[in-house]
């Protein structure tokens, strides 16, 4: 890694100030940043640790709205009763993300902010990559396309956003509250990521010096589940050997007592939350999803969900 200065922010305001300067980045769980620094993907001169700021890991409820602090560790979010009872899809998505050890480091705010990446992005030997070197092209487009995007891709980028929890947050229309020097804003989860058609070099819409301070989820979906297709029931990215997607299926009542059903089909695109829209329209069956030229339309893939959630889904009535 190239040398960097390390400091701990005492307040969100300090973190906003310090990371607004060029070359300065925010450190949360570190499970993204430390690897990128080691590989030379990023080389900040200053790392500002957010974890000393009090109150950013709290999980609270305000009536029908749950507020999750961005620094809450993934395992802690998944285990919290408010999450497990009101939105089990998020608990399951978290449990299917990364590994048990990583989930004690990684945070719920940092996870959706992961870089959209593929093996060419990660390559230590420079290869064309519009995210690493804007304008250089996309080596993956005519290279090895295993597990790359099936929705939302362009010739400039076919990589996939890896976040499972982020997918579930979009299914819930979660809102990220941010603070920045200009004041801050509320960002709908589905708007967080940047599609390659909008800017192939960008990963998300956060600006330097913009810090997530809260993740807000309104409504409950006690009967919801997260389905992740993996080649093995193990710590693994969602895979696209043929066709696969992570589906959050929710049925919930809003305050007025009406019910709606939502499917979210993701992991197909560079920005999972927008790669396939939700709503009451049905998700096309896997075998009929349009393919890229040269790829087969049918194939087998293995959908797995956590065993406990499968049992829970089966035991629940219609």
């Amino acid at each position: 890694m190239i040398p960097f200065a390390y400091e701990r922010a005492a307040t969100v305001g300090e973190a906003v100030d310090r990371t607004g300067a060029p070359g300065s980045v925010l450190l949360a769980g570190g499970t993204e940043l430390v690897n990128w620094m080691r590989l030379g993907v990023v080389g900040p001169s200053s790392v500002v640790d957010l974890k000393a700021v009090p109150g950013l890991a709290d999980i609270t409820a305000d009536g029908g709205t749950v507020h999750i602090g961005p620094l809450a560790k993934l395992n802690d979010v998944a285990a919290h009763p408010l999450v497990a009872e009101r939105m089990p899809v998020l608990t399951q998505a978290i449990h299917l993300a990364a590994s048990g050890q990583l989930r004690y480091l990684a945070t719920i705010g940092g996870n959706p902010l992961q870089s959209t990446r593929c093996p060419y992005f990660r390559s230590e030997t420079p290869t064309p990559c519009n995210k690493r070197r804007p304008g250089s092209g996309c080596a993956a487009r005519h290279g090895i396309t295993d597990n790359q995007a099936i929705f939302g891709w362009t010739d400039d980028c076919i990589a996939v956003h890896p976040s499972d929890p982020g997918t579930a947050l979009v299914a819930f229309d979660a809102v990220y509250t941010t603070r920045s020097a200009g004041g801050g804003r509320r960002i709908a989860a589905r708007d967080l990521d940047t599609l390659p058609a909008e800017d192939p070099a960008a990963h998300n819409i956060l600006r330097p010096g913009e810090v997530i301070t809260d993740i807000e989820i309104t409504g409950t979906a006690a009967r919801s589940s997260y389905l992740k297709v993996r080649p093995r029931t193990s710590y693994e990215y969602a895979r696209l050997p043929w066709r696969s997607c992570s589906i959050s299926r929710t049925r919930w009542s809003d305050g007025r007592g009406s019910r709606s059903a939502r499917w979210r089909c993701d992991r197909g695109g560079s920005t999972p939350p927008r790669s396939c829209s939700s709503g009451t329209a049905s998700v096309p069956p896997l075998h009929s999803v349009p393919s890229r030229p040269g790829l087969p339309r049918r194939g087998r893939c293995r959908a797995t969900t956590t065993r406990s959630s499968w049992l829970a889904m089966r035991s629940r009535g219609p």
Partner: protein
Amino acid sequence: MPLVHNVRTRLTVNREEMSVEHDTRLTLLDFLREHQDLTGAKKGCNRGECGTCTVLVDGRRVNGCMILLADLDGAEVTTVEGLAPQGALHPVQHAFIDNDAFQCGFCTPGQIMSAVGCIAEGHAGDNAEIREWMSGNICRCSAYPQIAAAVAQAAKDMRS
């Protein structure tokens, strides 16, 4: 290589308190192996994928390669060397021997620390749960069935 940016971190490693001035780039794993001679934790992938660097920080299992030491001010770190008092074996270590749960032994310290964490979390209920919750630890020798059996046995032993 000259230190460019230093920071001071106070932490406890295997019940020993220490105060260390170090380069900001130093990871917990490198600190343990290179500076403390605690070579139980291994550097398998150095990117959080293999789990051979698993240690406990404040009782929770984490990948040592993914943590900057600077992040651990005030933390308590436990490595495999500090798992059991001198001359004794932890029930997990016993179970690994009883179930022939290692061949070359390279992944074993990480597996053991991860198993300690997994059992404490309550995720050793059955074989499927153990396999999923231990999937952050890779074994090239493929001792997985024996490792899972060891975790199950240790969980049972520790309950009684």
